[in-house]
């Protein structure tokens, strides 16, 4: 997986680079619009992470250029602005997704994987992990070639954990991904636990070859067993 990160904040850039390398991605970086345009127009990337506010212009120009050159790299906008206008503008210019800072790395990685899946395999890829085959388009899974029924939330949780395989996913990140940004943390996300419990039971009973570990009560980690 080859990713271009366009970000003018060095500390931010470095963190993103490290997180992506943990996922075995090939990472290239650009800290201004010119560098970013150079790299984006010469090379092919599976995904471009794009900050809109750059010192020498708007990241949206890159989108425009990619469009003009008929390039179909996946683009994920990373913005400090949680503005519907910016989001719509970006998506209209051909961005695939929009993520507001600050974000959870698990969310970033899940989004990148989803973009890459759609771009590379037109979304038809069957994801395989352990004994599970996941059909992301139809939101269904089979284990040992047998269809398994998961409810919408169980599927979302499983998909998120698979995308972040081996990575510690915090309860907050999981809750926000599955239940939405506005989810209320007042009960410390205890309601997540019942869904996890069901999912874990199904995975164990059907010999899925994966294990959902609880990590010190702060989050979960999916491992191949």
């Amino acid at each position, binding site marked *: 997986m080859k990713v271009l990160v366009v970000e003018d904040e060095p500390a931010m850039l470095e963190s993103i680079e490290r997180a992506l390398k943990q996922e075995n991605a090939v990472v290239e970086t650009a800290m201004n619009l010119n560098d970013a345009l150079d790299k984006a127009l010469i090379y092919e990337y599976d995904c471009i992470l794009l900050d809109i506010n750059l010192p020498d212009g708007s990241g949206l120009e890159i989108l425009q250029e990619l469009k003009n050159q008929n390039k179909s790299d996946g683009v994920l906008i990373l913005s400090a602005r949680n503005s519907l206008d910016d989001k719509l503008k970006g998506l209209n210019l051909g961005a695939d997704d929009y993520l507001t800072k*600050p974000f959870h790395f698990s969310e970033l990685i899940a989004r990148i994987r989803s973009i890459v899946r759609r771009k590379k395999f037109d979304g038809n890829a069957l994801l395989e992990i352990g004994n599970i085959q996941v059909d992301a388009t139809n939101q269904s899974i089979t284990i040992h070639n047998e269809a398994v029924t998961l409810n919408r939330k169980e599927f979302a949780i499983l998909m998120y954990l698979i995308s972040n395989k081996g990575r*510690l996913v915090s309860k907050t990140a999981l809750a926000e991904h599955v239940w939405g940004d*506005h989810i209320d943390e007042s009960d410390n996300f205890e309601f997540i636990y019942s869904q996890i419990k069901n999912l874990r039971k199904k995975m164990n009973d059907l010999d899925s070859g994966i294990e959902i570990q609880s990590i010190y009560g702060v*989050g979960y980690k999916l491992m191949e067993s």
Partner: protein
Amino acid sequence: MKLIQRTIVFMSLALLIALSAWAFIFYVNMIDEVHDSIDDGLDNSKLLIIHEANQDSTVLYKTSFDEGNYAIRKMPADHALKHYDQYKDTLMYMENEHDLEPVRLLTTVFEAKENQFYELKVISSMVEEDDLIEDLFYSLLWLYLILMVTILVINALVLRSMWKPFFTYLNRLSQFKLEKNEKVQPIQSKTAEFQLLNKVVTEVLESNIRSFHNQKQLIENASHELQTPLAIALNKLQLLAENKELSEEIVKEIFQTIETLERLTRLNKSLLLLSKIENKQFRDEELVCFNELIQNILNEFQDQIEFKELELDLAFEGELKAQINPELARILITNLIKNAIRHNFKKGKIGILLTDSSLQISNSGTDKPLDPAKVFQRFHKESNDQSSTGLGLAIVKSIVDLSGYRISYNYALGIHQFMINFN
């Protein structure tokens, strides 16, 4: 009391005093003049009578006034020599009026023959002072009334039209609200005072509007600027927590720090949202169907409602469609429902009642009412809940205010109720 009424009261009092003083002086002068001319007449009569008495001694025996205007009486010399002419007002019975009427009486002494002294009294009828006062009083009353009517008319026509720009301006000022981001239209007037008023008020307002906007801008800018460092700190901590060599204790510490920073992020986002609402950055309103919206949002909260085993009483008694920014409508309902879940207890109740023009969201909770004056204030927290930003209801209030609706809080028997009126 209105300015015009005040003017009239002052004018009428001042006129009353001035007219009374004038009447007093006028009366005194007039009476003085009357006395003067009557006394001259009496003096003349006196000389004529004395002259006649010198020629015709029968005159000396006319001791009573009867049909004439004089009476004569003999007088001892020693008395007479001490006597001076005296003018006096007195009363006398008048046949024609059948009453005692005021007369002017001159008492004098004259020597008819050698050492024969006589006292002579001459009278002349006088103005009737009470009648005079009465006449004067009525004339003055009429004058006063006419003056008052004139003043009223002048006030009504002239002053009212002269003050009109002032009242127009006052009306505009009273409708001015800092948050509304509108300017007060200046008044058109050639009057120097009003032009000055225009200038002064405009300056004061503009400086206030400026500092208000600066302050709002500061909140928005500060919130924006905070997002990036927060993002960096959060991401660094997330990477740190991935380190497999860390002990459970340290990972937990890191996540506690992450949670604190996430709370700060939420707070920051809420402040930014509040600031954007108040800066009117949500412009596009459309007709939003709340029945649908509420149903959608409830679905999102279903797991939390089930987890808390809350009893949901959902009643759609009508179809509520209202003009509002759709993004804000979603935030509004989300915050209210989140609030009703958060401040509830296990196995509590949530009630949602929707009519054509109103929405009520109620929940069981603490058994004492919240302070209605403070419930919508920023950072006002009734509970010690660490994860609460204290901004949720403030955001609700500003959305409702911005959209031009009304929200109220009620409490009865352990049920807290928020009601939005969309009329």
